[in-house]
């Protein structure tokens, strides 16, 4: 699977017209052909394409992503620098998203068509429809330009200045969190609604449990099982959203790196970043599949009773 994806990425980038080396020099004219050749040799661009691909993959497996066409840094260094911020952003956003969406989904599901349900569902619909960058702009307008409470852009490493880092990560992570929370709320609500119709809920109530206990102990766990798949999808959204969000907020993560790389035609960087992201996505979905097997005993291999 991964192999196929990497092949896809590579092929796409190589089919391109335009020599990246030339972009680096700005124009074809006035460039010493010899220097051009030298550079191409250095970057490995003179070898036939299949060899280039194998070189790249070989390197990746060893952890070496190659050398950037532009900066002096190896791609590995660049990715290393930018990985931390992206992970920080994504992790905080995911945590916030779950924190908001799970209680919201439960409340909406337990009291369908009530005022609070309608409000929550409306929020969810908006969150689903709004493009992350539009939400980002609105938040920036309100909090940075308008209220002047938070900075609009920038990045400071956590180790340098934790306080500043957190204020800077606040807006971007809230934006991502809202966008990620919306589908979860929707799905969980529907899942809870459906679960509550199940006969075992009546059994639980008939045993003498308080309604609150019935919901939390019997409805919620069962409703969460299918919701796990949605979380897998969310990570996908987020990985895409992260790109634009980082750009908007000047957050120096992998997303911003990718956009930069595209603008500069720095394919070495681009192909590795995209590969990494795709790998992360595949990994997460794999984990979700495994998790599913763990939490739903019906899916475990073995014991069918007589």
């Amino acid at each position, binding site marked *: 699977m991964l192999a196929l994806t990497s092949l896809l990425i590579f092929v796409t980038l190589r089919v391109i017209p335009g020599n990246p080396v030339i972009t680096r020099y700005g124009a074809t004219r006035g460039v010493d052909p010899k220097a051009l050749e030298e550079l191409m040799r250095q970057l490995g661009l003179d070898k036939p394409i299949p060899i280039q691909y194998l070189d790249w993959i070989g390197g990746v497996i060893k952890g070496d992503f190659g050398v950037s066409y532009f900066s002096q840094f190896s791609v590995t260094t660049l990715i290393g620098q930018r990985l931390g911020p992206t992970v920080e952003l994504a992790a905080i956003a995911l945590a916030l998203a779950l924190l908001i969406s799970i209680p919201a989904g439960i409340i909406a599901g337990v009291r369908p068509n009530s005022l609070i349900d309608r409000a929550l569902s409306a929020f969810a619909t908006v969150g689903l429809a709004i493009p992350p960058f539009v939400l980002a702009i609105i938040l920036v307008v309100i909090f940075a330009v308008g209220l002047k409470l938070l900075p609009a852009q920038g990045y400071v490493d956590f180790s340098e200045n934790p306080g500043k880092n957190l204020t800077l990560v606040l807006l971007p992570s809230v934006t991502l969190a809202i966008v990620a929370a919306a589908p979860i709320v929707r799905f969980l609500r529907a899942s809870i609604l459906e679960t509550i119709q199940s006969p*075992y809920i*009546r059994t639980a109530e008939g*045993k*003498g449990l308080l309604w609150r206990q019935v919901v939390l102990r019997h409805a919620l766990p069962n409703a969460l099982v299918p919701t796990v798949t949605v979380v897998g999808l969310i990570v996908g959204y987020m990985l895409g959203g992260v790109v634009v969000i980082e750009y908007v907020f000047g957050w120096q993560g992998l997303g911003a790196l990718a956009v930069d790389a595209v603008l500069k035609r720095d394919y070495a960087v681009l192909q590795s970043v995209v590969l990494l992201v795709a790998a992360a996505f595949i990994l997460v979905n794999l984990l979700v599949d495994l998790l599913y097997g763990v939490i739903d005993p019906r899916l475990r291999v073995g*014991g*069918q009773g*007589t």
Partner: protein
Amino acid sequence: MTVQGPRVARPPDVRAAASPAASGAPVLDVRNLSVSFATPAGPVTPVRDISFTVAPGQRVGLVGESGSGKSLTALALMRLIHPPGRVTGQVFLGGTDLARLDGRELAKVRGGQVAMVYQDPMSALNPVQTIGHQIVEAIQIHADLGARDARDRAASLLADVGLQDPLRRMRSYPHEFSGGMRQRVMIAMAMSANPALLIADEPTTALDVTTQALVLDTLSRLVAERGTAVILITHDLGVAAGFCDDIQVMYAGRIVERAPASRLFRAPVHPYAEALLQSICDLDADITTELPVIPGQPPLPSALPSGCAFHPRCLYALDVCRTTEPAPFAVGTGGAMAECHRTDERIAGVVIAPVVGPGVR
């Protein structure tokens, strides 16, 4: 006419040897219970103003076709009917009117003093929890036991219902069990707090005949040992015959006849009860005889006939049956009754010729 049903071994009648009936204030005293639903087309009342009592240790059968209102009655007793359903009337359980209790108090009663066993054990058990977990939960709600004690108690309950190797079984999930085993687990769960009343809603409908017998046996034994009163809801007359002391026949939301089981099957009074018994396929009859059926369909709760709800299908209907709802007429002195205008004639043994007229479709 014989009634064939699963032969249930009845342990010697413990109750008769115990204190006389006078010691029993009834375990359950239902008065004017009604269940209604608000629909866009107007309110619909599938259970209409029924009243009955259950004595300690008594086994009452609630018999009727689908749609007669029997399951809703059971749910209404446990107060498990939620809006848009509305329950009115009084339900006295051991002297307390359940209608007056709030959520917390009701939770104490449910499972504790009255428990229910449901129709489809597969969907009635939580599929992602082990059955051990579910039984222990049931135990811990009503008894202040630690985890270990509760587990031991659960294991002994499971042994009581005939499950082998209970401690290991407790770690299994519902889908790993057969239908009969699941139903016995549900019985164990329901009986875990020694309720005074057990309501069994079609406990054997989802099972094959052999397993039916097994489950009913188990149930019978358990309730006899503990003196639990039982309301058994079923559409299977055979099951009711083998298990119950008294039978209440429901039709269109009302109890149309109440009689001791033995007498009902011999000499039903209400025409519906009679028709039901006649419609049982007689295995000894000639294969060419037509299967007896009751003409017509049970009425929908939203479209009840005037007067007696059974009159359009009744062979003996008179004009009064069309216009006036029959009140309960006593049959004998033991609390038996029938809601039929022609009760007296039928008790007297007068052979009534079927009326061919506007009553019959």
